[in-house]
């Protein structure tokens, strides 16, 4: 695969798939025509919905508050101009009544459509607005329009009058007022612009500007509409992926090109991946066309501000939502590709994919219901998480933690589904029945006595990650639980998650347990003991230094209250028996985590990668899982844990057994917690090692030297093996 990437062959394969797809008119129809049809229709429907909801609850009498007579005067003159413009055009006549201490009245009693009352207030206009006593609060910030002296200097002499309008968000009357006022100013601008063109041959120029600011919470109807937008966007993105997914798999099978393709000496996963890249590209292109179509349509239709807020198109949010669309495209393209791989014909693929899309609508619609938020647990629910995150991003109020979990989980699901697809791809050309492919997809192709491959690990991670995250988040511990019980719960959870679940998966997939977990494959580990003991007593020094350096570099994410809780726990540990601490925090985690990270995971990485890369990959995985502990993201734990994972991985690979890892891991954890437990006596002896400070240089130097000696010893003791 790497060779194919280097030679550029893989990219040529992707280009071929993409070229073939984009030349097909059916793809172009979905890509271009659908957004062109859907968004105008949607815009019209939403506009009707908004107008009908507004007309039900509003009257045409609006009360406007200003704070000075000058503003009142300027507002009056603008409204009069607008009135004249409207009368000239003979549409939507208005009645205007401007009232203040001087009490000017402008009105059109014949054809009353909207009725404006303007008054000067000394009070804070925001308070009046929030209490509902006025519908709009207006401040005029620029000088009044000056008439041009000649057509030559018309551009420079004309100045814009700027209305800063505040309205109550969520109040139909106030929103209707701002809508009407905007319409008035638009009419005035159009009329003035026309006049300028006729008299001086000048182009369009804004005479009055409006800047509206919302106050208060959004109304439920508008909020719901805004929530629907990401759902539509995501669904349209899926639509873009459907046709290419079917055509490049089941379609190819139907055309009879699949057998020729899989007869080539290109790994099937590379063939599948090139198709996947093409599908994701088309899907992302569809997303771009959709975003553009939506913005243009809503802006032209005047719905942009109603749906996206007064700031109009949230460019920053759109930039943020774009990577989400790519991740979502990746996830759904993988699902569609996997399902199409099972089908033997276009028709069969359609029969699978259309119900899938309809099923996807269910959680999609539920996720836009009010009262549903992107909580950390919700962030691992596929589809829900992406739509909720897109909604929050568009609203400009997302939180990083669930956002990161959403992206990680969606990425893992996509990779897991691709690994499943790779098990099926191309096989249905040769198999008489497609229902057998479903079974084949769930079972590893390397089953029956073999150890896991990389694809099997990805499938496992896709299943395991949500379980791990929700379990460590939910089966937590209430504040009323005693520390002893909390330690037992945590140890049991670690045992279930990292030992029992991988064993159950390996059994389900039919892997050879001994070869997968390699507990005692090489009994000569006993000769490594001196080296292992050296590592146990020295590793913590370097781990501690990396931790402190991480904090100094500013990659610490633990908040002060979380650090305080950790310190409190450290103090509580001092009351517990040492045996309990070793059992629950050293031995059990070592047994379980080594079985998964250095057994199952390292074995799977070694099936595809060179030993160095495989060890590094398993170390990164080990570090990543330690970063995500429940609802806390402790990035500063990554480097020390990954470094420890690297050493443990190397030991497992060199020795061919989990035993050295068990000893070093348990010894390392046990030593750290023992030091924490005996902090006070150690401090009295002048060993203040649990503070978040650097260790003495001599300690670090001694630690490094001991690690080097320990590793060298282990390397020599296992020399024959390698």
């Amino acid at each position, binding site marked *: 695969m790497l060779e194919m990437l280097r030679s550029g062959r893989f990219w040529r394969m992707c280009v*071929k798939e993409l070229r073939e797809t984009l030349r097909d008119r059916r793809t172009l129809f979905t890509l271009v025509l659908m957004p062109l049809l859907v968004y105008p229709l949607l815009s019209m429907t939403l506009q009707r919905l908004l107008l009908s909801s507004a007309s039900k609850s509003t009257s045409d009498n609006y009360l406007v508050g200003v704070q000075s007579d000058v503003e009142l005067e300027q507002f009056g003159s603008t409204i009069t101009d607008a009135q004249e413009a409207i009368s000239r055009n003979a549409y939507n006549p208005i009645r205007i009544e401007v009232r203040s201490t001087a009490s000017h009245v402008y009105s059109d009693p014949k054809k009353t459509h909207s009725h404006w009352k303007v008054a000067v207030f000394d009070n804070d206009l925001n308070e009046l607005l929030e209490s509902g006593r006025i519908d709009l609060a207006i401040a005029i910030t620029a000088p009044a329009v000056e008439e041009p002296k000649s057509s030559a200097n018309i551009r420079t002499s004309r100045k814009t009058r700027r209305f800063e309008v505040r309205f109550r968000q969520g109040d139909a009357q106030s929103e209707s007022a701002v809508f009407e006022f905007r319409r008035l100013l638009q009419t005035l601008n159009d009329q003035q612009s026309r006049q300028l063109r006729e008299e001086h041959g000048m182009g369009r120029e804004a005479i009055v500007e409006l800047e509206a600011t919302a106050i208060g919470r959004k109304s439920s109807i508008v909020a719901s509409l805004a929530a629907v937008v990401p759902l539509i966007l995501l669904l349209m993105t899926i639509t873009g992926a459907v046709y290419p997914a079917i055509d490049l798999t089941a379609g190819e099978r139907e055309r009879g*090109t699949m057998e020729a393709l899989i*007869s080539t000496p290109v790994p099937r996963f590379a063939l599948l991946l090139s198709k996947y890249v093409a599908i994701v590209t088309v899907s992302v292109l569809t997303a771009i066309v959709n975003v553009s179509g939506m913005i243009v349509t809503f802006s032209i239709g005047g719905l942009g501000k109603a749906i996206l807020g007064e700031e109009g198109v949230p460019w920053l949010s759109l930039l943020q939502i774009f990577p989400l669309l790519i991740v979502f495209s990746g996830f759904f393209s993988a699902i569609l590709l996997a399902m199409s791989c099972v089908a033997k014909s276009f028709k069969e693929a359609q029969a699978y994919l259309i119900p899938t899309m309809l099923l996807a609508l269910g959680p999609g619609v539920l996720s836009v219901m009010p009262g549903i938020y992107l909580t950390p647990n919700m962030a691992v629910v596929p589809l829900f998480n992406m739509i909720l995150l897109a909604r929050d991003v568009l609203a400009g109020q997302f939180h990083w933690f669930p956002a990161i979990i959403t992206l990680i989980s969606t990425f893992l699901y996509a990779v897991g589904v691709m690994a499943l697809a790779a098990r099926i791809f191309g096989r249905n050309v040769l198999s*008489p029945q497609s229902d*057998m492919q479903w079974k084949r997809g769930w079972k590893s192709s390397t089953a029956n006595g073999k150890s896991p491959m990389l694809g099997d690990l990805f499938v496992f991670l896709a299943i395991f990650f949500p379980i791990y995250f929700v379990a460590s988040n939910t089966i937590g511990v209430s504040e009323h639980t005693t520390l002893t019980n909390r330690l037992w719960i945590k140890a049991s959870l670690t045992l279930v998650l990292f030992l029992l679940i991988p064993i159950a998966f390996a059994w389900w997939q039919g892997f050879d347990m001994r070869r997968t977990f390699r507990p005692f494959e090489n009994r000569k580990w006993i000769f490594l003991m001196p080296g292992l003991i050296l590592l146990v007593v020295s590793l913590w020094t370097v781990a501690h230094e990396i931790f402190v350096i991480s904090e100094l570099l500013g990659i610490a994410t633990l908040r002060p209250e979380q650090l305080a809780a950790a310190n409190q726990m450290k103090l509580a540990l001092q009351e517990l028996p040492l045996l309990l601490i070793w059992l629950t925090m050293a031995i059990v985690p070592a047994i379980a985590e080594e079985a998964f990270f250095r057994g199952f995971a390292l074995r799977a990485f070694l099936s595809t990668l060179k030993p160095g890369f495989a060890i590094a990959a398993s170390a990164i995985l080990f570090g990543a899982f330690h970063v995500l502990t429940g609802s806390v993201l402790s990035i500063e734990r990554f480097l020390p844990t990954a470094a420890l994972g690297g050493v443990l991985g190397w030991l497992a690979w060199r020795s061919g057994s989990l035993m050295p890892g068990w000893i070093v891991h348990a010894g390392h954890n046990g030593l750290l917690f023992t030091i924490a437990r005996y902090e006070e006596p150690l401090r009295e002896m002048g060993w203040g090692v649990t503070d978040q400070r650097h260790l003495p240089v001599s300690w670090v130097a001694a630690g490094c030297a001991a690690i080097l000696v320990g590793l060298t010893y282990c390397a020599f003791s296992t020399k024959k093996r390698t």
Partner: protein
Amino acid sequence: MIVASNLTKRFSIATGVKTAVNSLSFTVQPGEVYGLLGPNGAGKTTTLRMVMGLLQPDEGEVLIDGIRSDSASQSVLSKLGMISTNDGVYPWLSVREMLVYFADLYGVPLRDAQKRLVELAGLLGIETFLDQRCSTLSTGQRQRVILARGLMHDPPVMLLDEPTRGLDIVGSRTTFEYIDLLRSQGKAVLLSTHRLDEAERLCDRFGLLHCGALRYEGSLSQLQSQTGREHLVDMFLELLDQRSARSEMDASRKAMSDSLEGLD
């Protein structure tokens, strides 16, 4: 070059297990055209797929140049060229694009692929529609393009599954001439067909398959002496007669057992 020993393949179907290929053994030497002949459902295509390494045999093995086809299929596949009548083309690509794409998949450098394309286009008479979209090709033109596709990487072993089906007389003659050329170039050719006349003309040796098992094998003269028949067609018909005779025998056996059960 191709050594198949004791090949057996069974498929699970709704009614039980069907043995598609049963203890099949044959060899094809470089410079030899071996005809795998038999009626529909005899197991020819399954055999070719096992030779390709696309299907794992339940028993036995195939060695291509000494390498097991199922164990190291990626290296084996680069030595093989497969042409099947069931193959299709990419409708939205031009003939040139498709052939160069397949050459690339086999690791042929672009310049060599272009050279090979010109060579094959002249040989197979496809130069006039090289830049035409594949969807616009006639059946015969498509067949010739498929033939060119299998030969783009100049493999030492060719597997041909009904290569002349759908071709007109001129197209068939072109194919025959090319198979002759392959033989003269020292390639091992495994040809599966039920066009016995063309097999008789093209093949050096034959294997007559029936119900997944090899009934007769050898050169035409050897088969003639084994069967006492002059032509392959007669040998083939004899195989079919044997099958119908067996089914008649089975039917009479069943009728007899039914009547015995009735007596009980």
